[in-house]
């Protein structure tokens, strides 16, 4: 019989590290080795487990035994008693169990999750999202019940405000203040909206959250409704998310069937129900006023604020609108309290943030880290670094309107202020890692092409200005850039930033401005030397056949314009005047004989 392998998780959150957790790890190895258990045991580091006051924390699996206040002196005892003799050290065991810890019972040992902390995604990946019982069994709807039973609406608002939670949709407006403003309004009816119109290309935080744990959103919204005095919630979700729609729909129906939505929730005087509205997939409808217009049946275009939705929102009524991830935080804030929530994150940004990690990293995926985690930790520890031995070049945070940050900003901690200071934005959570093969001018063009395409067309700076910026960028990447182009980009970009009507317009120039700021020399090379160092701009490169050519003729046959000539079994050549830089020959050659120059 093979003995059960052990997995030990050592909390690697900042607080535990400060209390000496890393020394424990070394000692642990030593002790395991001594008892001949090292082969059978893996040691994993976890992100903050949220029990900082009881740190350092150590978890032994199987069994999920949590040890708190562990000192170096305790290690031999734990190894000997627990691992060897199978007698958990009772005096060190703590019963603390936060909602999100359950996730790490399943996942806490993987390196990918080492720096992570699952608060909003606490149930994502461990429950059946279509089974309300799964959610209920993990203290589901207890926060709602607690709010209704033990708290006045004002106390709920106080708690949210005290938690320091800020809007996760991008702008980072203090959630509690938003709630208070809406709660203060006397007009009725009031509305509660969940903004699930996730539009950033490559972003799937909200979709995954709803697909993985829809009840959290329903519960969060119901708490919001209780706090501000609303009985009507709307989930605005894009029609391209059929599974998420199906699951949130089922969650709403199941909640109704259990008396958790509808009239007199859980026998109380509080009534609240939720309807679903589908968006047609316009990026701009993620902007709150445009989203409200869309629900009203009008064209999705932002309107100037003030008045803010808190005062005059859906159908002119006070409206509390929050993003999916913000809503997902609410049950945790209520259940575990603001005092606990406040311990996670940085001075100005509390809690965790979900990111869709994409681009040139080994582990692409959906991650949730405490605020304050650095970009370097995310990219190298969670993401596993850059694949294929390539060099890191830049990371773009905040979706298509975020900025591209170079290596020197890698130690920037993730929070609203630090990212803004570095020249990017938190955004809703897109994070794209860029390696040396990417041309920064081309990247800027790519992102701007998206925002330009998705501009609602209402305000002049965004509609006309981004078009002109895009024209200049296209010109530069095609080798037709001219002196003054960079200055014109900066001029237009800063004007749009300061003048556009909505946040989307105001942030649209970010990729361009940040790449000019951080990679200006690449722009200058494109314009002055007609050179693309990443060899990504097809108009600025040419293809040459080198000595590795064996004359197989494959490139000659695929060339659509007949630019390649050569006799069989002799080295071929490319007529540069005829070549249209399509790259087919390059991709076809099996002998790496064709080079981009």
């Amino acid at each position, binding site marked *: 019989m093979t003995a*059960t*392998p052990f*997995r030990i998780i050592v909390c690697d959150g900042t607080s535990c590290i400060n209390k000496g957790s890393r020394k424990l790890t070394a000692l642990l190895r030593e002790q395991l080795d001594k008892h001949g258990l090292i082969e059978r045991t*893996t040691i994993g580091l976890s992100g903050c487990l949220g029990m900082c006051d009881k740190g350092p924390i150590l978890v032994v*699996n*199987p*069994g999920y035994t949590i040890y708190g206040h562990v000192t170096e002196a305790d290690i031999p005892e734990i190894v000997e008693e627990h691992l060897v003799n199978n007698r958990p050290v009772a005096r060190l065991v703590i019963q603390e169990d936060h909602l999100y810890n359950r996730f790490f*019972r*399943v*996942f806490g*040992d*993987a*390196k*990918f999750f080492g720096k992570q902390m699952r608060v909003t*995604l606490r*149930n*994502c*990946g*461990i*429950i*059946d*999202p*279509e*089974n*309300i*019982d*799964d959610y*209920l*069994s993990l*203290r*589901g*709807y*207890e926060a*709602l*019940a*607690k709010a*209704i*039973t*033990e708290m006045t609406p004002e106390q709920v608002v106080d708690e949210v405000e005290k938690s320091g939670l800020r809007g996760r949709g991008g702008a980072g407006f203090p959630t509690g203040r938003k709630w208070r403003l809406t709660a203060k309004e006397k007009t009725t009816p009031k509305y509660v909206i969940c903004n699930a119109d996730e539009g950033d290309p490559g972003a*799937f935080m909200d*979709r*995954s959250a709803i*697909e*993985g*744990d829809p009840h959290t959103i329903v519960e969060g919204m119901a708490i919001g409704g209780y706090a501000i005095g609303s009985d009507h919630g709307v989930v605005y979700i894009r029609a391209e998310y*059929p*599974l*998420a729609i199906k699951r949130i729909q089922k969650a709403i129906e199941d909640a109704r069937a*259990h008396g958790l939505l509808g009239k007199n929730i*859980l*026998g*109380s005087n509080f009534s609240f129900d939720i309807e679903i509205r589908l968006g047609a997939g316009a990026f701009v409808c993620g902007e709150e006023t445009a989203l409200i217009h869309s629900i009203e049946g009008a064209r999705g275009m932002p309107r100037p604020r003030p008045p803010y939705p808190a005062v005059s929102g859906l159908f002119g009524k006070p409206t509390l609108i929050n993003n999916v991830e913000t809503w997902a935080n609410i049950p945790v804030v209520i259940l575990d309290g603001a005092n606990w929530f406040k311990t996670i994150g940085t001075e100005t940004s509390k809690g965790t943030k979900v990111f869709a990690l*994409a681009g040139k990293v*080994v*582990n*692409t*995926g*959906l*991650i*949730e880290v405490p605020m304050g985690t650095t970009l370097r930790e995310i990219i190298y520890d969670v993401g596993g670094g850059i694949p294929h031995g390539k060099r890191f070049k830049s990371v773009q945070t905040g979706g298509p309107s975020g900025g591209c940050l170079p290596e020197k900003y890698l130690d920037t901690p993730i929070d609203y202020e630090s990212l803004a200071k570095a020249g990017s934005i938190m955004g809703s959570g897109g994070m794209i890692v860029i390696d040396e093969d990417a041309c920064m001018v081309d990247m800027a063009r790519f992102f701007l092409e998206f925002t330009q395409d998705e501009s609602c067309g209402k305000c002049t700076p965004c509609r006309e200005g981004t078009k002109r910026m895009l024209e200049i960028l296209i010109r530069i990447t095609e080798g037709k850039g001219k002196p003054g182009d960079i200055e014109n980009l900066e001029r237009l970009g800063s004007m749009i930033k300061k003048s556009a009507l909505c946040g989307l317009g105001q942030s649209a120039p970010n990729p361009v401005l940040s790449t000019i700021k951080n990679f200006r020399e690449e722009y200058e090379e494109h314009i002055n030397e007609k050179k693309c160092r990443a060899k990504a701009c097809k108009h600025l490169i040419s293809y040459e056949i080198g000595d590795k050519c064996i004359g197989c003729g494959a490139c000659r046959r695929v060339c659509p314009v007949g630019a390649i000539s050569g006799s069989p079994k002799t080295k071929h050549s490319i007529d540069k005047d005829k070549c249209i830089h399509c790259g087919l020959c390059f991709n076809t050659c099996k002998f790496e004989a064709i080079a981009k120059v």
Partner: protein
Amino acid sequence: MPTPLELIKKKRAEAVSRIIGKGYLSTKRVYVGMATCEIAAGSKDVMEVFQKAVSRGLTDVYLSQKGCAGRCNLEPTVEVIEAGKSPVKYGKVDKDRAQQIIERHLKNGEIIKEWVID
């Protein structure tokens, strides 16, 4: 009249017993990732393989779906949780791997190391 908080605790107890009634305390639980991204990567086929096996007599297995755990590059993912053991997560599971997980892991207790995510 019970308070909402008392009511919800009762509801939780009921939910737990319903889950147990469905076989949650089986010696093996299998979770198949069924978010859009997982489905796009082929998890529906994987789910079918497990469902078929269960309907054809793979007893003592509690089969469930789950949302996205974030391992995009390794999807579809499948977790096997056995009482008293650390959970095992498999990545890039296709129909063939699913069949082998059934045969080798669920039936014979072998952890197929090369597919395990860690």
